[in-house]
């Protein structure tokens, strides 16, 4: 077998090599050597991006499972499998990321025996563990179909209603609880982002991002794997995304209105600049775009609006987890390059695994017999480009 080196393959290899270097630094020299985290900034990029954004970006799984299996919207059936695959990979990689961030990851199983039910982190931990298991079972039919194992498919089908309801229940709990994590820091987190409504905002944004990510991922897969684009499905998702963005925008407005902050958020300040960036990317630009029917019916327009809103929500979560603490702490936190490189490595692994799964498993329903020659290995890193560029935002 001949391996052809392409630009993106080289990029992928570079990311992996740097990532492995950082991994060695992390596990042989400690968190202090690999990151710019300090006693004042104990949570950095790995919590802000890998945890908060990672779990949000994987929300497409429960959104699409909810739409197709819970509400029985058959028209969206073709996007369920890729969405579940993305979610499953997302959660597995999120756990990989956690192994870097936890100071004593070898004791992570303590979570199962020393339980503190008052802790939001405990709830998130248990939900993420359980939901990853649920996603594993939701993903399994792909493997069984690949090897044509009919009996286990039947078993899974029998428990599918339970899996669906359990999956959505767990997702509701931990997506919102990621916001609740910050409820205990009223004196530290900047009022632009500290609000009792945090759990609602986090859940709302998870749904919007779930829809946007599904559009993003369908478009990317179509490009990378030479599939034909199912425009009616994307258009439907785009409409839902517009509604979800409006609901999110109204929630945010209500929150600022009730806390009497509307005057403050328009005054220029360090935090306000980040808030404006966030609001522009999350709401102003994509809502304006999607309000035009022409955009809502074009694959390119839908793609751009989705990417824009996803970047906006990522900015939001980084504002909550990093920018919102800088005034309290009194200095800036800028992640070390090794922190970026670990995050990049994890994201790149996600794209590579997605590519492999699509290649060997019947993820896209209309292509039950994937043509091996057409799907070259580098296709995985081809999709990686747009997201990799923003992974560290």
């Amino acid at each position, binding site marked *: 077998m001949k391996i052809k080196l392409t630009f993106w393959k080289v990029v992928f290899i570079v990311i992996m090599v740097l990532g492995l270097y950082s991994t060695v630094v992390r*596990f*042989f*020299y*400690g*968190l*202090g*050597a690999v990151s710019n*985290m*300090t*006693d*004042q900034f*104990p*949570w950095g990029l790995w919590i802000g991006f890998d945890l908060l954004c990672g779990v949000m970006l994987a929300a497409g799984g429960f959104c699409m499972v909810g739409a197709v*299996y*819970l*509400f*029985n919207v058959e028209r969206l059936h073709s996007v369920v499998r890729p969405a579940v695959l993305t979610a499953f990979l997302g959660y597995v990689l999120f756990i990989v990321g956690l192994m870097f*961030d*936890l*100071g*004593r*990851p070898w*004791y*992570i199983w*303590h*979570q199962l025996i*020393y*339980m*503190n*039910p*008052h*802790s*939001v*982190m*405990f*709830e998130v*931990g248990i939900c993420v563990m359980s939901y990853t298991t649920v996603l594993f079972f939701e993903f399994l039919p792909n493997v069984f179909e690949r090897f044509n194992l009919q009996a286990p498919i039947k078993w899974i089908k029998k428990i599918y*209603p339970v899996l*669906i*309801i359990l999956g*959505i*229940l767990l997702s*509701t*709990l931990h997506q919102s*609880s990621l916001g*609740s*994590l910050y*409820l*205990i*820091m*009223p*004196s*530290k987190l900047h009022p632009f982002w500290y609000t009792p409504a945090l*759990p609602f905002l986090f859940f709302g944004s998870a749904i919007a991002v779930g829809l946007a990510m599904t559009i993003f991922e369908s478009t990317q897969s179509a490009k990378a794997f030479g599939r034909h684009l199912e425009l009616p499905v994307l258009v439907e998702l785009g409409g839902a995304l517009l509604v979800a963005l409006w609901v999110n925008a109204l929630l945010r407005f209500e929150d600022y209105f009730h806390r009497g902050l509307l005057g403050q958020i328009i005054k220029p300040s360090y935090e306000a600049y980040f808030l404006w960036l966030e609001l522009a990317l999350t709401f102003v630009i994509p809502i304006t775009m999607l309000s035009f029917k022409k955009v809502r019916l074009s694959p390119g327009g839908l793609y751009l609006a989705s990417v824009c809103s996803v970047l906006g929500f990522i900015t939001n979560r980084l504002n909550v987890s990093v920018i919102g603490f800088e005034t309290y702490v009194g200095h800036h936190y800028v992640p070390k390059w090794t922190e970026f490189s670990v995050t990049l490595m994890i994201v790149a692994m996600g794209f590579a695994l997605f590519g492999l799964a699509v290649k060997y498993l019947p993820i896209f329903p209309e292509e039950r017999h994937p043509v091996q020659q057409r799907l070259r290995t580098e296709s995985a890193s081809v999709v990686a480009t747009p997201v990799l560029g923003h992974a560290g935002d």
Partner: protein
Amino acid sequence: MSKALLYDATMCIGCKQCESGCAQQNKLPYDDKVAAEPVQSAHKYTVVLTKDDKFMRRLCMNCEKPACASVCPVGAMHKTKEGPVVYDVWKCIGCRYCMVACAFGQPKYEWQSLNPRIRKCIMCPDRIIAGKQTACAEICPTGATKFGERDDLIKEAQGRIRQNPSTYLPRIYGLNEVGGTSVFILSSMKVEEYGYPASAKIGDTAMPEYTGRVMERIPDFIPVWTLVLGGIYWVSHRREEVAAAEAEEKKQHGSGK
């Protein structure tokens, strides 16, 4: 029988005996270099700060309702009935939620270690159980750091303010902050100038309540939401089932004839 510490900044002479006593008690390195460090860290649980010839001690407040204990996913921190908020290193997974949750920024981390621990003043729990004072209170030459029953110390602090109203600011820092702590501070200067969070900012609400309000709803939320989701599933799939059942019936009728 909760114990507490009363630190009276006006009696402090800045000798840093409490720093060295604390280091000795907790088997931490202490020399001139450490003594000169003006910040708390994983190897310095307490620090005496100097500003305009006036001194101020910083240490873990050992809150009555500690945020660190409530947020820890594995319950590695807990408030003992004697007063100290202690740490069980074996349980700790290193998530550092206690560090971000603490309003006083007290838990510190061994960033350079490969098996890092949270480090903070734990108010000498072994000494207290043995009937002794904390190391810092015992070593203090002027009585600026005083150990005793929490209730007695509150009365004493109130008495000192009453007797010398011109010396002290009329407040006991730690009495009501975040629902009360086990360390009280009396001072002629605002404690905020030494890095303590302002009372108005942290408020009198016990920190665990902020998340508790949400967490206590979860046991009710789970069954309700499961029922709602199950209901939606049942309704949205009912039509299919009816159609399938009718088709089945027709088929049976057809084959029965």
